[in-house]
């Protein structure tokens, strides 16, 4: 192409631009309430492990999801700060009174990162891809409601409707996890059944087309993933500056947390996330120099707990274990153990004070669902002794606790050796319960072996583990609370609930799943929390704080306790105008 014709094309598009803007497909930008930052600059953040794929349909590991999170656009997103849903590619949405029909109005004039326009066909296409069993998408299970897939209909190029078999509580939250795929790029690959190959780590960056704030620029395995600003991104700030502010965002591969701390300390990275309390302390010493600021966001959604083996051990050749289970299955015993544990000391010694003692499995960080009346009670040996005495236990002359038949109470407490905080909590529990006359043996095993004991062999007494969840909604905990659930750790995958209270939880959890109104769901889930707190299948211990940091001068840094803590609003992150 000669220089002259090139000039003509530039001229022509300049003339045409105002005409196109007047058409109905005028670009409807989302206006973000961010502080205006300077355009340009770059952001660097550490990534703990290598992404396994950049394909949003099949990604499961956290490193892949961290990167994909910046490449993808969704119809609705969960605001990590408020923990509520807000419009994204869908301008607005309406839910029918029976909770089974969603109608979404799409933003007009939006273009993919390669300039191709986005419309309802892309939504319908994406839906088919996620639901197609051939693609093995982890999101597929979420889209089955009442055993049937959620159906999608295109009403017009900018309106889509979703039909559910039965009502599904907080259904709009599902959209946050579903990246909209470019039909014009992937249709052929999907027809040939080659989706996984079409988008992999070796795909040319130009072919990875998305609707996110960034697009892939280059990927050097074992070293870095470089993203560049998507010039077609559909958000702007109040001044009309198109987001994102920064030109480039680099993920540096730094395999250990300690190495990440050092990189952040030396200024190689601009953001630090998932810091441990100790490393936070190490960094705090350097905060006064003013190069970075740290933030303790308070308890996150992750929580640690102690649980006893309440499964049925008959016929497994574990008679000695079954004998000890008579204590564990006694709710008074579990309550006494809970009362005897010093959660304050655990928070101080295992988490440097940066953790919240728990009285319920819903952490105070979960704004919409935490139940204030279930706050942690301080340690009380007297209450523990009273509970045991009332349940028929007594103390021998040497102080050892004995059950009604005179057998001394002792059990093994297992946890994974690689988690220093859990090992410390186990040591503290051992010491706490010794005061109660219970002899506890702490056994630390490799993580795989711990899970194997809990889920398969079931040859254990008690265990300390933790759960973290991706969203602040009870629906993500269905597999924990349903007695048939695989993560119902104390007695997994039961054919029928073995206790009346487990049956009650099953009923309430299933009810809340098909209840539309938040207030009604809240009442049901409060009841679940109360039953759990009364029966203590999991004795809640602590919720560690989410600890993050950012370089000085970074604007709109609004970290949140939902994943991704610091990059969830990456499009709004930018440097202040001053150098």
């Amino acid at each position, binding site marked *: 192409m000669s220089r002259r014709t090139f000039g003509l094309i530039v001229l022509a598009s300049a003339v045409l631009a105002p005409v196109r803007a007047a058409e109905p497909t005028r670009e409807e930008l989302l206006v973000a309430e961010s502080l205006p930052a300077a355009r340009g600059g770059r952001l660097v953040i550490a990534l703990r492990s290598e992404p396994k794929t950049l394909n949003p349909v099949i990604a499961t590991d956290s490193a892949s999801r961290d990167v994909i999170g910046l490449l993808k656009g969704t119809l609705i997103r969960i605001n990590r700060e408020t923990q509520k849903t807000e419009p994204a590619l869908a301008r607005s949405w309406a839910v029918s009174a029976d909770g089974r029909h969603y109608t979404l109005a799409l933003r007009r004039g939006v273009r993919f990162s390669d300039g191709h326009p986005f419309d309802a066909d892309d939504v319908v296409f994406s839906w088919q891809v996620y639901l197609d069993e051939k693609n093995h998408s982890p999101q597929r299970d979420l889209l089955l409601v009442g055993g049937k897939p959620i159906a999608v209909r295109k009403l017009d190029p900018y309106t889509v409707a979703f039909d559910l078999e039965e009502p599904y509580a907080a259904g709009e939250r599902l959209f946050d996890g579903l990246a909209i795929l470019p039909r014009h790029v992937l249709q052929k690959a999907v027809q040939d059944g080659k989706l996984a190959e079409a988008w992999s780590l070796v795909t040319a960056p130009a072919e990875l087309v998305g609707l996110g704030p960034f697009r892939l620029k280059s990927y050097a395995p074992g070293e870095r993933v470089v993203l560049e600003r998507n010039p077609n991104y559909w958000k702007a700030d109040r001044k009309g500056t198109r987001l994102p502010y920064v030109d480039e965002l680099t993920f540096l591969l730094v395999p250990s*947390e*300690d190495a990440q*701390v050092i990189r952040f300390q030396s200024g190689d990275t601009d953001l630090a996330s998932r810091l*441990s309390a*100790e*490393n936070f*302390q*190490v960094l*705090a*010493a350097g905060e006064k120099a003013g190069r970075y600021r740290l933030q303790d966001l308070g308890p996150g959604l992750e929580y640690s707990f102690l649980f006893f083996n309440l499964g049925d051990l008959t016929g497994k050749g574990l008679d*000695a*274990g079954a004998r*000890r289970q008579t204590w564990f299955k006694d709710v008074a015993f579990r309550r006494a153990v809970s009362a005897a544990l*010093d959660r304050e*000391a655990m928070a*101080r*010694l295992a988490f440097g*004070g940066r953790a919240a003692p728990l009285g319920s499995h819903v952490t105070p960080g979960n704004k919409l669902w935490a139940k204030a009346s279930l706050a942690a009670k301080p340690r009380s040996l007297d209450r523990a002794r009273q509970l045991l005495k009332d349940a028929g236990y007594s103390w021998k002359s040497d102080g050892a606790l004995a059950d009604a038949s005179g057998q001394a109470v002792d*059990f*093994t407490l*297992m946890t994974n*050796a*690689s988690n*220093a905080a859990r*090992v*410390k909590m*186990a*040591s*503290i529990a*051992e*010491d706490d319960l010794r005061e109660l006359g219970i002899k506890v*043996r*702490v*056994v*630390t*095993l*490799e993580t795989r*072996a711990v899970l194997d*004991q809990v889920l398969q062999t079931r*040859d*254990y*007494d008690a265990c300390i583990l933790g759960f973290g969840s991706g969203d602040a909604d009870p629906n993500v905990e269905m597999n924990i609370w349903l007695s048939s659930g695989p993560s119902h750790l104390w007695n997994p995958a039961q054919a029928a609930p073995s206790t009346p209270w487990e049956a009650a939880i099953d009923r309430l959890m299933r009810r809340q799943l098909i209840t539309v109104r938040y207030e009604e769901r809240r009442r049901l889930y409060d009841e679940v929390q109360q039953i759990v707190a009364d029966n203590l299948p999991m004795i809640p211990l602590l919720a560690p704080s989410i600890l993050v940091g950012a370089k000085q001068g970074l604007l709109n840094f609004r970290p949140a306790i939902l994943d991704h803590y610091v990059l969830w609003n990456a499009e709004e992150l930018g440097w202040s105008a001053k150098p």
Partner: protein
Amino acid sequence: MTGTARVAALFLVAVHVIVVLAGFLAPYDPATQNRRLPFAPPARLHFVDEQGGFHSRPFVYALVDAPDRALGYQEEKSRAFPVRLFVEGAPYRVAGVFTARTHLFGVDEPGRLFLLGSDGLGRDQLSRLLHGGQISLFAGLLAAALSLGLGSALGMLAGFHGRWVDAVIMRLAELFMALPWLYLLLAVRAFLPLHMPPAQTFLLLVSVIGVVDWARPARLARGIALSVRERDFVRAARSFGAGSLYLIRRHIAPETASVVLTQAALLVPQYVLAEVTLSFFGLGVAEPAASWGNMLGALQQYHVLVSYWWMWIPGVVLVPVFMAYHALADGLRARA
């Protein structure tokens, strides 16, 4: 024996005697937690008080949180706790038989005397070091005794008997030498029932360490047995009608003794290290019992590594112990 080897031997005897007397020499029970004093630095012994008065008996101050917690602790100087000898404290077992309460030194309650600081749960490092030494050092001795006993017996049998016995035992030895022992130990640990007294778990681990490694001493013993059995005095004894057992006991075993002893001096530190390695990964001696390995395990955390130097002490102690064992091995080899 050379002078160095003699010094090394004396040093080792002293170290082992000290850890045997751990209960008496350690001021506290190794499992007692002081939850207000995690990572307390080693106590500063004072001789001069606030008023400038000199005391011949050293004393310590209690530690309280510094106003800015990031700075750690500061001394609370209103009350001094003089160090006393032969104080009554936590009970301990002597030789596993009777219980005693007298400790060599200590301070009055509520004072604390952490001569080597405290760990993350406020447990006295010195007490843990001494009690941990019992486990770590005797794990090495026990495992070495096991592997040498088994190894030299099988090796002598192979060397003396020759033919198919030799072939079978030596092929088996090669098989054992090819086993990746760390993974084997991990597998054994995962395979053991969880609800087992810690002492039993420990003995089992030690026997596994020892039994797995019989092959090397067996090869050495075999080599010696092979050469000795062809010597004239052995042939003479045989011609007088001496039986195999007599020959092994009377002529072969004494010849292998010096090699086996040298080997022992090399193997003991190796097995001490095996215990330390396993416990370092949290798979050896279980909390709250102390061993040098699980004490060093705390150093896996970066902040401990950089912030609290006294957590390194078990590692620092291992160095002279290993050096002494190697010097001893050198001396024994020179003599042989």
